[in-house]
């Protein structure tokens, strides 16, 4: 193949239907060697179907899948390699760890089935267990392990084959919150240390932000945006991405003026109130007179008790409620017909009904086409 560096996994206009319903529509993606790519979206967005097509558990209706340059699925060319011939590892939500075997035997099993030599099995299994921090529990039965430890066994079992890519399907969603946070960081460290190309499916946006080199946001079978976590979060391509990742205040209005990278918008606050004129960065595809949506994050809004003198963007409102979260206060402010969330970093006793002013820097707001 010519052109840019070849990906370990390449999806070329992948489409999968279930009856009349299109689960995945023309999805194209190239995953580079050693990269950690997350497919993120709500249930039914097509992320798991995409993963199952890569794994060979589903057969795509159109398009092509290549793993390390080899076509593993193409209806047009009549190719469908079974999962066991694709050189992939898989880690699922259910640990799928055999209870009647020790940790060592669980991990060694796949190698033994493939008739790997005895000393090689010993070395590779030990190596994989060391990597996941379970070498000291090698002789323990799987039933004696905690949820986090079982998931590590599942991971060791996937990496012991040294597959070209590991596919993860919501592997942490059965763990409790604290363990999940630990495992995220650990999984990323492992993945980097072992240098394994990974495709990870989740509906949990914080997981995607913490773990990924790149995030693929999906909705209704279609890729909405591909980018690194900061870009996806700070420069969402549309209102769906803005609201699916973190919290975004989305205010609809019209575009009054556009000057290069900047937009002036009129945002009506309510039927009885005048619109406010606000300035923000322009997203791709906005043009004058169009219906637009302003997206601004709670942490990019500043709250003032008196009207600020020199702020470019000021929204007047009144406090509905505040929720104290320790490291910050989550404030809800009513501005006309809108409820705006603001992250207040310094503790202030605000009372419901109190008048406040919200400001934000133009570069921290984003004008999206509706």
């Amino acid at each position: 193949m010519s052109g840019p560096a070849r990906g370990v996994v390449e999806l070329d206009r992948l489409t999968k239907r279930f009856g009349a319903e299109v689960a995945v529509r023309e999805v194209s993606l190239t995953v580079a060697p050693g990269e950690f790519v997350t497919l993120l979206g709500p249930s039914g967005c097509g992320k798991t179907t995409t993963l199952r097509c890569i794994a060979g558990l589903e057969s795509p209706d159109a398009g092509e899948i290549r793993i390390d340059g080899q076509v593993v699925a193409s209806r047009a060319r009549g190719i469908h390699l079974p999962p066991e011939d694709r050189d992939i590892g898989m880690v699922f939500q259910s640990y799928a760890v055999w209870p009647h075997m020790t940790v060592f035997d669980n991990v060694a099993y796949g190698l033994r089935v493939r008739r790997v030599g005895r000393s090689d099995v010993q070395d590779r299994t030990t190596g994989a267990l060391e990597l996941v921090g379970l070498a000291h529990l090698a002789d323990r039965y799987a039933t004696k392990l905690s949820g986090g430890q079982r998931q590590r066994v599942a991971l060791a079992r996937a990496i012991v084959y040294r597959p070209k890519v590991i596919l993860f399907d919501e592997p942490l969603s059965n763990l409790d919150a604290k363990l999940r946070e630990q495992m995220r960081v650990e999984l990323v460290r492992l993945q980097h240390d072992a240098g394994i190309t990974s495709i990870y499916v989740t509906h949990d946006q914080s997981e995607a932000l913490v773990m990924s080199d790149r995030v693929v946001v999906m909705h209704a079978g279609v890729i909405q945006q591909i980018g690194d976590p900061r870009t996806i979060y700070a420069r969402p391509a549309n209102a769906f991405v803005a609201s699916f990742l973190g919290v975004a205040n989305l205010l609809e209005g019209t575009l009054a003026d556009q000057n290069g990278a900047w937009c002036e918008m009129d945002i009506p606050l309510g039927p009885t109130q005048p619109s406010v004129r606000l300035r923000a960065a322009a997203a791709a595809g906005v043009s004058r007179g169009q219906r637009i949506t302003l997206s601004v994050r709670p942490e990019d809004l500043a709250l003032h008790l008196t009207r600020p003198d020199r702020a470019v963007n000021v929204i007047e409102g009144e406090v509905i409620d505040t929720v104290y979260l320790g490291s910050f206060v989550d404030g809800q402010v009513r501005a006309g017909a809108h409820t705006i969330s603001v992250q207040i970093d310094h503790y202030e006793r605000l009372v419901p009904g109190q008048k406040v002013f919200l400001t934000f820097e133009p570069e921290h707001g984003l004008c999206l086409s509706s």
Partner: protein
Amino acid sequence: MEAGSPAPRHLEVRGLVKSFGPERAVDDISFGVPRGKFLTLLGPSGCGKTTTLMCIAGLHRLDAGEIRVGGVAYTSVADRIFLAPERRDIGMVFQSYAIWPHMTVAENVAYPLEIRKVARAEIHDRVADVLRLVGLLEMAGKLATQLSGGQQQRAALARAIVYRPKLLLFDEPLSNLDLKLREQMRVELKRIQREVGITSVYVTHDQAEALVMSDEIIVMSDGRIQQTGDPHDIYARPANRYVSNFIGVANLLPGRVVRVTAPGRGEIEVQEGAARVRLPCRLGEGVGEGAPAVLSVRPENVQALREDRGEPRLEGLVLQTIFLGNCLDCRVRWGAFEWKILAHPRYLLRAGERVFLRLDPEHSLAVRP
């Protein structure tokens, strides 16, 4: 009740002691809850919080102490009073939803009124009111088994408040729900409690839940009260190392108070490996000059700057940054210590950078070890 106390206490617990065999599960605790307020008993498992709740409910007998509701003694060891649980007029919501699967939502909620022989028309109205309040009015005719976990917990709450009990007791009601739903339900539960105005005692091991929901929090460990206060007090002015560590995340550095500069203010010297520094700070209760203390600083109150602004100098190395969307979680090595710092997500710190840490003396607290 003492004269001049600010709010009359609807629930009053005094000198409560409860042992199981040789072990004191609850060791002489006293507290009160003003009418309509929401109190949380917070602590790890085995701290005595659930035992305390069971004593209030009348499901345990006390070894010593008394419990009063609205001035009436429910339990008094000295006066040999023990009111049976069913006569206490208390609503309870548990972790397991305890909703009857063979009944509809409306029948479940009506049940407590039926056994209290409330008139049929009134039952209908009150059930409808309560279901509207918890957002289940559309589900009234559904069988309880057709509800999601969050909906079942709403039904359980509706059943507990429909007969307007004197007291509501919650025993970790949200711990079976997934994280997203749990976060929604915290705010929702608090809203409902405020609307019905029933005095509530809530037991949890989840500090975030306690901060969000409570008017007042009691932090417990080993059967004793570590601190009582409103959420902001507990978070910003922890009484000791235990509370500081249990609530939220804190950087905790052992040191010694070297100087008291004003009432409640001073300087602490901390050392971690080769790094040592004197820092101005606030002094917690019981911390004086020369005393060993622990400096407690929350991650959001540490700033990592690229330029050196002079003394006190805390120069460190960024080990790791984790982008969390609305904030940046950073780890900075200083001597042998690893600082946890929460920065604004727009601040682009990178692993391997040298930084200078600034602490706000107002948010640096020396507490008892």
